[in-house]
C-alpha cells in the first residue's frame, strides 16, 4: 500500500516538474525582453500591460538578490548575458559597472525630460531612472513624549542628550549604511569623518548588518525596538503612511533632511552588451524614463522619479521629503576610496 502511495508521489512530482519545464515562453511567439534587476524593483500591472501591447513585446523580470548581488551577477555573466536591460545600478556601484564595461550607450530622446543633475554618466551607458535621499528617520511620538528637540545636524547626533538613540547599518553589508557613511565623508571631510564616528561610537550608536534588522528590529516607531533614530530613506515616512493600517492624520515618523545630513542615491538603468534584443531594449529604456512608469516609482519603490514631468502622488508630496542640500560625491572617487573608507569605519566603530 505505502509503496503505491510513494510511487504516486514520485510520478506526480515528476509530472509536475516536466510540465513546469516545458511550459516555455517561445510558444507565445512574442519577442521577450529580459530585465535584470534587484529585489526592491516593482511595477504596476496596468502600466506594464500598456507598454507590452503598444510594442508587441513581453517583459520578463529577473530578480537577482540585492543591488550589489544583482550587479555582480550581471558582470560575471557578461560573456553570455542573462538579460537585455539592467535596472538598479546606484551611484555607489556606478564606477564598478562602467569599468566592467558591460553596458552600451544609448541616448534616449527622453533624456531631455530628465533632471540634469542626475545624469552622471555623460556617455549615456547608464541613464538615471530614480533617486532618493538616505538620512536619519525619527520616531515623532517618542521625541514629543520625551520633550526632546529633534536632532537637526550630524553634529547634534554626537551630543550627550542623544546618547544611545541611533541605529545605523553596517556600510560593508548594506547600501543605506554605505550611503550614510558617504554622507558623513562628504560633510565632515575625508580627514574628519573618522573623528565623527569615534564620537558617535562613544555616544553608543548601535550597528546592524542590514536595513531590515535596523528598521524592523531596533527602530521604536516600527516595532518593539528601543531606538527612536534610524538610518533610512527620506521617503520612508510616506511609506509609513501609505502602508498604515488606518490612514493616520500625520506620519508616525519623519526624516532629518537638514543641510549635509543626507546622501543622494541615484539609480540607473542601461542596455547590456550582447543583448539579444538591442532594438527592443532601447524601447524598454525609453519606457523606464517615460512618465507612465516614472509616476509609478513613488508608490512602488518609494523613490523620486528622475523625469521632471512626472507628477507625484499626494501621500508623497505631503510626507516624503528631499534633503535640502544632500551630499553628492563623484562616483569615481567613491569607487577609488570606498574600500579604504569602509575599512576605516570598521576599525573605528566595530573593533
Amino acid at each position, binding site marked *: *500500500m*505505502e509503496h503505491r502511495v*510513494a510511487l504516486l*508521489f*514520485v510520478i506526480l*512530482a*515528476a509530472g*509536475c*516538474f516536466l510540465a*513546469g*519545464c516545458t511550459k516555455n515562453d517561445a510558444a507565445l511567439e512574442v519577442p521577450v525582453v529580459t530585465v535584470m534587476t534587484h*529585489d526592491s524593483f*516593482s*511595477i*504596476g500591472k496596468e502600466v*506594464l500591460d500598456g507598454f507590452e501591447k503598444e510594442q508587441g513585446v513581453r517583459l520578463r523580470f*529577473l*530578480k537577482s*538578490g540585492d543591488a*550589489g*548581488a544583482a550587479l*555582480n*551577477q550581471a*558582470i*560575471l*555573466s557578461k*560573456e*553570455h548575458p*542573462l538579460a537585455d536591460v539592467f535596472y538598479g545600478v546606484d551611484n555607489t556601484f556606478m564606477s*564598478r559597472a562602467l569599468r566592467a564595461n558591460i553596458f552600451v550607450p544609448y541616448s534616449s530622446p527622453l533624456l531631455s525630460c530628465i533632471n540634469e543633475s542626475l545624469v552622471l554618466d555623460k556617455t549615456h551607458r547608464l541613464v538615471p531612472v530614480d533617486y532618493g535621499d538616505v538620512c536619519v528617520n525619527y520616531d515623532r511620538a517618542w521625541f514629543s513624549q520625551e520633550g526632546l528637540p529633534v536632532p537637526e545636524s550630524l553634529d547634534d547626533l554626537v551630543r550627550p542628550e542623544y546618547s544611545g538613540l541611533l541605529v545605523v547599518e*553596517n556600510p*560593508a*553589508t548594506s547600501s543605506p549604511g*554605505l550611503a550614510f557613511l558617504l554622507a558623513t565623508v562628504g560633510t565632515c571631510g575625508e580627514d574628519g569623518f573618522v573623528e565623527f564616528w569615534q564620537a558617535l561610537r562613544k555616544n553608543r550608536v548601535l*550597528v*546592524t*548588518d*542590514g536595513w*531590515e*534588522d535596523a*528598521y*524592523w*528590529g531596533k527602530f*521604536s516607531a*516600527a*516595532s*518593539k*525596538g*528601543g531606538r527612536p533614530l534610524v538610518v*533610512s530613506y527620506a521617503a520612508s515616512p510616506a511609506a*509609513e503612511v*501609505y502602508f498604515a*493600517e*488606518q490612514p493616520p492624520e500625520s506620519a508616525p*515618523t519623519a526624516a532629518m533632511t537638514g543641510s549635509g545630513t543626507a546622501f543622494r542615491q541615484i539609480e540607473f538603468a542601461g542596455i547590456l552588451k550582447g543583448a539579444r534584443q538591442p532594438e527592443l531594449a532601447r524601447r524598454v529604456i525609453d519606457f523606464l524614463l517615460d512618465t507612465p512608469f516614472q509616476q509609478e516609482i513613488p508608490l*512602488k519603490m*518609494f523613490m523620486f522619479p528622475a523625469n521632471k514631468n512626472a507628477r507625484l502622488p499626494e501621500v508623497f508630496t505631503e510626507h516624503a521629503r528631499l534633503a535640502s542640500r544632500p551630499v553628492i560625491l563623484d562616483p569615481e572617487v567613491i569607487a577609488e576610496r570606498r*574600500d579604504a573608507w*569602509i575599512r576605516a569605519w570598521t576599525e573605528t566603530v*566595530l573593533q
Partner: protein
Amino acid sequence: MRPPGNRAAILLVALPLAFLGVFYFYPLFEIFSLSLAPGGQWDPGNITALFSTGSSLRILWFTTWQAALSTVLTVVLALPAAYVFARYRFPGKSLIQSCTTIPFVLPSVVVAAAFSALLGDRGLANEWLMVIWGFSSPPIRLEQSLAFILMAHVFYNFTVVLRIVGGFWSRIHPGLSHAAQVLGASPWQAFWKVTFPVLRPGIMAASLLVFIFCFSSFGVILILGGPRYSTIEVAIYRQAVHLFNLPMAAALSLLQICFMFAFMWVYTRLQRSASVPFAPESLKTTQRDIVTNRDRVVVWGTVFLMLLFLASPLLALVVCSLSTGSGVSLLYYRAIFQNAGQSIFYIPPALAIGYSVWFALVTLVLSLCIGLPVAIFLSRDRGLATSLLDPLFMLPLATSAVTLGFGYIVALDEPPLNLRASLIIVPLAHTLVAYPFVVRSILPGLRSIPAHIMESAVLLGAAPGKVWWKVVAPMVRRSLAVGAVFAFTVSIGEFGATVFLARPEIPTVPLAIYRFLGQPGAMNYGQAMAMSTILMLVTAAGFLFLEKLRTGPGGEF
C-alpha cells in the same frame, strides 16, 4: 546483502558523482579559476593575503568554536527529548514532533523577529519582568550577544538531534540497558557504558549535521549577532557581494572547503570505528505507554520544557500576526490575499505555497535518488574510497551559497547546461543541500545491521536485490523517512539559493516574506508575520501528512 562487488559499487556512486561533478565541482572550479587565475594566470597573492593579516584565521577560529559550542549545547539539550520520544508512546506525539521541526524552515529574519519579540530589550519577557519585579531597565540583555546566536542555533537544530538520535534510539532494545542494571550497574553507568556506545553513531551523525549547519551559519550571525560577529560564510558574502573582491571571496571559500574536508575526514575515521552492530527492534518492543507517575513526570516534564523553548518564539510570531493597531484581528491575513498596489510582483499566497511545496517534493525525490545510493555505498568499508568519498559527499552542505551561486552564473551559461534562468535550477540547488541529510539519516542504521543477518538471507538463497528489499530496506525505512522529512524541510525553508536563482513568476513563501519586509509600514510587517504563520502551518501540515503515510495501513516504516 553481500557487499556489492567493485563494479556494482561503481555503478552505485556513478549517478551521485556525476550529479556532484556537474552541479557542484564544475561551477566551483569555474568560479575559482576565474577569481584566482584571471586570464589563465595563477596568482597566489590572494592565498598569501589570506594569512598575512591574522583576521582570516580569527574568523576561522570563531566560526569553529561557536559551531562546536552550539553543537554540544544542542545535543545535550535534545538528548532527554530524544529519549522520551524513543521510549514512550503518548497522546499527541506525532503532532508535537511535527511542531519541533517548524523552526527549521523559518527564514532567519523571521526567527530574529520572533526572538526579539520575546526576549529583546523591549520584548514580552522583559516587559513582564519589569512590571512584576519592578526593574527600571530591561533585565534580559541578549541583543547582539553570543548567547543570542547560540540560542538561535539550538532552536534551529534541536529537531535534527531529536529526529536522528530519537529514531536511532527507538530501534535499540531497552533490554540491553535493563540487563546491565540487573547486573548491578547504576542507571547512569548503564547509559554511559551500554546505551551510549550503541547510540554513538546516531549522535555523531546528528552532531555532524548540526556542526556543519552552525559552521556555515549566515542569517543568524548577521542579524542576531550583529556586525561584531563574523563566520567565514558572512565574510565571503561581504567580500563577494559588497566589495566585489572575488579573489578574496574565492580564497575564503577554499579555506572553508578545505577545513571542512579535513574535519570530516577525521570525523569519518572516528565514526567508522564507532559503529556497534545490533539488530534493530520493532517499535512494539522498544516503546511503552506511560504507566507510573515517574513516567508521567519524565515525559510531560520533558515535553513541557521542550515546547516552552521551541514553541514560545513561534507563538510570539502568531501573536504579532494577529495584533493589529486596533486590537486582535485578521487584518493582515486578509491583506495578503489582496494585491492592493496592483503590482505585477504581487505574490498570491496560494501560488507561493504551491511552488514551495512543489519544489520541496521534487527536492525530496531527487535527494532520495542521490542520497540512497551514496548511503548504501558508504555503509561498507571500502578503504580509501570510503574515507575520501564520505567527506566529499558532505561538502555541498558546507559550501558558501554565494560562491556556488556565482559559480552557476559563470559555469552553467552554455547549452546544454544553460540552466541559469530555468525552473529546474531551484530544486537542483536545494538537492545539493538536502541529500546529505538523507545520507546521514540512513547511514548509522545501515552500518549497524549485523553482517550475519544478510549472510543468512544469502545462504537461504535470496538474490542481492531481494536481500535489499526484504531485509535491509525494512530495517532502515524509518530513518529513510527521517531523511525524506529533512529533504522536504530544507527545501521549504531554503532562501539563499532561491534568492539568487529566483524568477518573480515562481515565488516561494520565504521569498514572499522577504518582499514584505523590504519596505517600511505597519501593514508590511504584519503581512510578513501572517505569511510566516502560514509557512509554519503549511510545514506542520506537510509533516503530519508524511507521518500519516508512514504509519498508514501498510504498517510502520
